[in-house]
């Protein structure tokens, strides 16, 4: 039985925050994925998962408008980010935040200055207020005591949390996280998962998370899609716990049961 169709449990979302329709990406003649279609609802923690090299991070970069897709349409907060330019693009970018896999903190700035940077660029807050707000963001991710440290002086887990604080600087309704738990110990990783859940619950933030960490997927994901290198596209969509228990596609089953494919 071919389980690929049965593992895609599509849900029609009202007023989607992120919408991808028939998205494809190719580098030259090498197709990475095609016909990727999904919607993310407001306040959801949506996970993009899959094995190494399946195009998860590339899909994230398409979603945030860094590259145009080869085919298909992407709408973020109801707008086409790729087509927006000038003031419209700037306004749209101020409504989303991105945490990069490495943290991508600016090495010459302290954590506080890193978080203050988007506030300086996008708000009319007075300088003292910017600092106070940035301290709150660092406090939200548990880094109050590291505000004046440089990125080179903190651990990988702290860099990821600082990356989240900077991504949240403008209180965007939509946050993209690229591999938030990669390379972290289980305790730090669990703490980060809890933080994502708390922020989604208390602040109503929508999260799109790229990860292949199984425990994180199950801990934070409301819904997920799974990309596959062989299939060059989506092979599953739905509640990660449902997929773990009832998936029929062999790759999806192997992924959730940590079996060799």
């Amino acid at each position, binding site marked *: 039985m071919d389980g690929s169709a049965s593992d895609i449990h599509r849900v029609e979302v009202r007023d989607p925050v992120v919408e991808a329709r028939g998205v494809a990406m190719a580098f030259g003649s090498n197709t990475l994925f095609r016909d990727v279609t999904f919607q993310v609802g407001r306040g959801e923690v949506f996970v993009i998962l899959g094995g190494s090299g399946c195009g998860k991070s590339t899909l994230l970069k398409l979603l945030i408008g860094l590259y145009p897709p080869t085919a298909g349409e992407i709408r973020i907060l109801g707008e086409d980010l790729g087509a927006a330019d000038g003031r419209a693009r700037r306004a749209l970018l101020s409504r989303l935040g991105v945490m990069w896999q490495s943290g991508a903190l600016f*090495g010459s700035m302290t954590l506080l200055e890193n978080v203050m940077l988007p506030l300086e660029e996008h708000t009319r807050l007075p300088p003292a*207020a910017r600092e*106070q707000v940035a301290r709150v963001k660092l406090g939200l991710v548990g880094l109050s005591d590291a505000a004046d440290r440089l990125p080179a002086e903190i651990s990988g887990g702290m860099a990821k949390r600082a990356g989240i604080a900077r991504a949240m600087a403008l*209180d965007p309704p939509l946050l993209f996280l690229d591999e938030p738990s990669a390379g972290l110990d289980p305790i730090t990783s669990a703490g980060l998962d809890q933080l994502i859940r708390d922020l989604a619950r208390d602040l109503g933030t929508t999260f799109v998370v790229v990860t292949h960490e199984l425990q994180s997927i199950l801990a934070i994901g409301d819904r997920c899609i799974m990309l596959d290198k062989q299939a060059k596209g989506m092979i599953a969509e739905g509640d990660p716990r449902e997929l773990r228990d009832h998936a029929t596609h062999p790759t999806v089953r192997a992924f959730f049961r940590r079996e060799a494919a």
Partner: protein
Amino acid sequence: MTAQAEQAGFDRQDETLRLRGPLTTQRVGPLWREVLRAAPGARRLDLSAVTALDTTGATLVLAGASAASKADPVPIEGASESVGAVLERARAALAAPRPAAAPGGLSFVAATGAWGVGLWHRFWESTGFLGETVVMAFAALPHPRRMRPADLLRHLDEAGLRAFPLTVLLGTLIGVILAFQSSIPMRQFGAEIFIPPLVGISLVRELGPLIAAVILSGRTGSAYAAELGTMTVNEEIDALRIMGVDPMAMLVLPRLLAAMLVMPVLTLVMNLSGLAGMTAVMIALGFPTALVLNQLEQWLTLGSLIGGLGKSVLFGLAIAMIGCRAGLSAGRGPRAVGDAATAAVVGGIVATVVLDGLCAVLFFRLGW
């Protein structure tokens, strides 16, 4: 009316500071100062008309509550469930412990002392690096294969061959400039015929090695520092050590050798290019080529040439050592590589000039 279309605002009624509308990042900016100005003396903050609150808005509410009373923050009332949840999160974030205040700035005397101690440490470490290099070089002599020939050839190519065009260009221009500049005062004394020895001796004894050293420092010293600095940041140097491979033998020795080998060649190219430039100017001024060559032959000694080439080897060694040391002692983070490259160029040029001064004294004593 939706929350997005509403205006954020506030008013003060007796002892109540009443905030209203959506208190969100993009809307509280213009309000911030006014709210803090209106807050003192208020006995409570009323949030019953607040339709939306994010953490930036919550920070303003908490700042307002603190500004209202110098003692304890005043109570915040009327918040809906969702507004209250955000407020509590922000309150908890602000209450998290902060690091102890950093000690104040050092006094002038203490700062000078700290600078001196730092300088002494750097000198001490550099001396250690020099000693380590000498020991490693002697240890490598019986095992030349440990130093990979392919690496040496690559460094010879990068530091030497690829620097030829720049060296020829700068050498020619400097010969031209020196000849033109010196022709004006020399003409006043009717001594234009002595321009070739003046430029020739200047180039061969001083400017040739010095400018070749500046080229080596800017191109190669900085490249060594950046390359080894990146390897240090990426923990490749630690990986080599753990594999039992001596980074000094594998990475430093070929670079030192390459710099020492290319420097006399670059100096020679610089000298020849400069002399060619000077000759072109002399011809333009109406002097025959044979006369220029005759003057050079008469005044330029083999001792001057050997002295210049000899000290260029020393410059090459110093520049490569400083570049390698800057790279291997790079710190962490993205700035580390840039800092190492800067230290390599500055250190290389300073060391070149200092060594040149020492050579000048030595040559004077030796009567060269």
